[in-house]
């Protein structure tokens, strides 16, 4: 199956942006990643098994693009995270605090945490998207959770 690029953009751009932001921590770079990902989709003739397959493919491409941006020495238009957060409308101080503490995690933990809690992927699905082993995913998830628990205390539930 395929859907046209405009529909894919409408449907997935916020998810791609969120995933890219977890790696770049910079809205301008994350926007570039979304653009590049959708362009790549636009130019490929690949057929997808279903919408889940398409979504996972887009996320994988976006994450790899974002990692490439991060590895580049040339990163433009960087806005300090705290400044960017002031432009966002959080529902509560707890949400804002959670956002900040996640962004303070190392990159490899951030993206695993995001795919698990935001995209609701299983360990196996996260491993496939990131191209790492299940045990590696479990370790990153476990350490990321522990670091969040240490920072957020009662705002973060144990063993979830």
């Amino acid at each position, binding site marked *: 199956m395929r859907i046209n*690029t405009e529909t894919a*953009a409408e449907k997935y*751009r*916020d998810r*791609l*942006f*969120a995933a890219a*932001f977890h*790696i*770049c*921590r*910079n809205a301008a770079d*994350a*926007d570039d990643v*979304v*653009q*590049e990902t*959708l*362009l*790549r989709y*636009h*130019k490929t003739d690949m057929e997808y098994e279903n919408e889940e397959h398409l979504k996972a493919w887009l996320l994988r491409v976006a994450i790899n693009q974002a990692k*490439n941006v*991060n*590895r*580049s*020495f*040339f*990163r433009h238009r960087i806005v300090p*995270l705290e400044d960017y957060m002031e432009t*966002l*409308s*959080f*529902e*509560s101080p*707890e*949400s*804002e605090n*959670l*956002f900040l503490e*996640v*962004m*303070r995690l*190392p*990159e490899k933990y951030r993206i695993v*945490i*995001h795919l698990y*809690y*935001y995209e*609701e992927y299983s360990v196996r699905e996260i491993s496939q998207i990131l191209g790492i082993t299940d045990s590696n995913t479990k370790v990153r998830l476990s350490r990321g959770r522990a670091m969040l628990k240490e920072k957020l205390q009662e*705002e*973060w*539930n144990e063993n*979830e």
Partner: protein
Amino acid sequence: MKMSNKEKYQAAFSVLHASAVHSMQKQQTENRPVFMVRRFAAVCAGVIIMLVGGYGVYALGGQAVREVWGWGNNMRYTETTDSETGETEKQVKVMTESLTDPVEIRDNRLYFIVNGEDIDITGLISETQAYEYEYTDEEGYVHYWLVGKNGPETTHYGYGEYIKDADGKWIGGYSARTNLDENGKGTEWLEAGKEQIGFPG
């Protein structure tokens, strides 16, 4: 009703939205230089430079030139080979007048910021133990970072960056904000860190 972690997470990150306009006309081949070129005065005071061999070159007027930049343009490695004689000249410049620190101090805590990271390393480093971080750039070079403490104060930190090429050969590195003895050996955390990453110097 108590929210689950997933619900909390989704609420917190639902504020992220991509820009609405995504033109499919944009050229995918837009150039984005990997290594930003800046002009520096070459100075080396207070910084040790170590070099091993390396390969991978481009041609320039009868010479094959290989150039690698460290993070923040703190260090430039240049290897020039004369295509006629085969003689190779290797040079590292450490930009001590404009070094970008890989560490920020906030609220008396140390944060490692290289490569877009923001890692609280306060409890991870000491005078005997280095914090180690590595990443691979787009050219396949692996950058190893070491950060340690030279004394008890938060401001008493030092650091080093060491680069290995895609073939696994060390091409160079430097350390800054740390004392070296007459044999070029650094403080305990630095030497322990170099041993850990396998840097032969």
